[in-house]
């Protein structure tokens, strides 16, 4: 059990580091790093706070506490993926509308040039 929890601690610390480096290099915008940092921090705390992890495992009816942590990790990432799917969908809609607007404006500009 200790080994699995240590691995989770290492992975969550690595994730925090990765996200912070990405934010510093401007590869992830700050607003999109918050979800990842919060999820990684929660995993880090749960993998170290045995009492809390046992309580959560009891609450959701899992007899092996590290499995509860793995389940929670999966749920957290699902929420993050959902949030990013919403954001990507919105961005795609905006992108299509912008591309269409650019094309239509170019058409009008060309028509004006041809008329003049």
């Amino acid at each position, binding site marked *: 059990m200790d080994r699995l929890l240590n691995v989770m601690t290492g992975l969550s610390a690595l994730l925090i580091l990765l996200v912070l480096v990405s934010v510093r290099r401007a590869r992830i915008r700050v607003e999109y790093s918050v979800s990842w940092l919060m999820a990684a921090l929660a995993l880090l705390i749960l993998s170290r706070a045995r009492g809390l992890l046992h309580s959560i495992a009891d609450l959701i009816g899992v007899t092996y506490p590290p499995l509860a942590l793995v389940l929670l990790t999966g749920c957290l990432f699902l929420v993050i993926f959902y949030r990013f799917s919403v954001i990507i969908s919105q961005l795609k809609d905006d992108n*299509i509308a912008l*591309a*269409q607007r*650019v*094309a*239509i404006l170019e*058409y009008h500009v060309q028509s004006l040039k041809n008329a003049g």
Partner: protein
Amino acid sequence: MSPNGKSLLVIVPAFNEEGAVGNVVADVNRVMPDVPVLVVDDCSSDATVTVARGAGAEVLSLPHHLGLGGCVQAGYKLAFELGYQYVIRVDGDGQHDAADIPRIFETLHSSGCEMVIGSRFINGNGEHTSMVRALGSRFFRMVLRPILGKAVHDPTSGFVGVNRNALGVFSRSFPLEYPEIETLVVLQRRRFHFEEVPCRMLPRKSGRSSITPLKSIYYIVHVLLGVFVNVLKYERRAPKQPGRS
């Protein structure tokens, strides 16, 4: 009946159709000489734009590839802004027979319905339709019958004419990936009406269809989901128009 002023625009969505688009534009110009043709180029990497302009079409060039729905919607948006009353969409691969355009326009104009579909299956004219596509059409006919409240013979046809009411709706909201079937549901939710007229399907003039069995399965799942999302979508329904069934 000939269209006048800004009555009718023919739009031709095209992506890498240099081998066919010139003939498509020429055919439309021959059948409807007074009607402007707008080729909406979905960022082709070949000479589609040059060929289309050379054939006498206006060209709306998208800055990057949007896919069929985004491409058609761009044409609808421009037509709406320019004040056109009717728009007929003809595919750029040359499979739609320009000789059918007057019949679609006539029906659009005289029936008052919002959309007219050029149907390959009304008089059994589906001879150049692939078996996969014909099966897909049959499947979606069954799915759409209870949703639309009337039979539609060719729900996957891209040979469609719309009036200004539909143009306004599609300018604001248009299914982006596989638009043909979902647009029927969008129309139905607004209590708009459609008619079908028989049309001929020609063999492709150039290139080859991108439809593979795997893509067909993806298409069916995607469109089914799109149909049911549109059915369930929360938005205020338009009141029923008096005097229309």
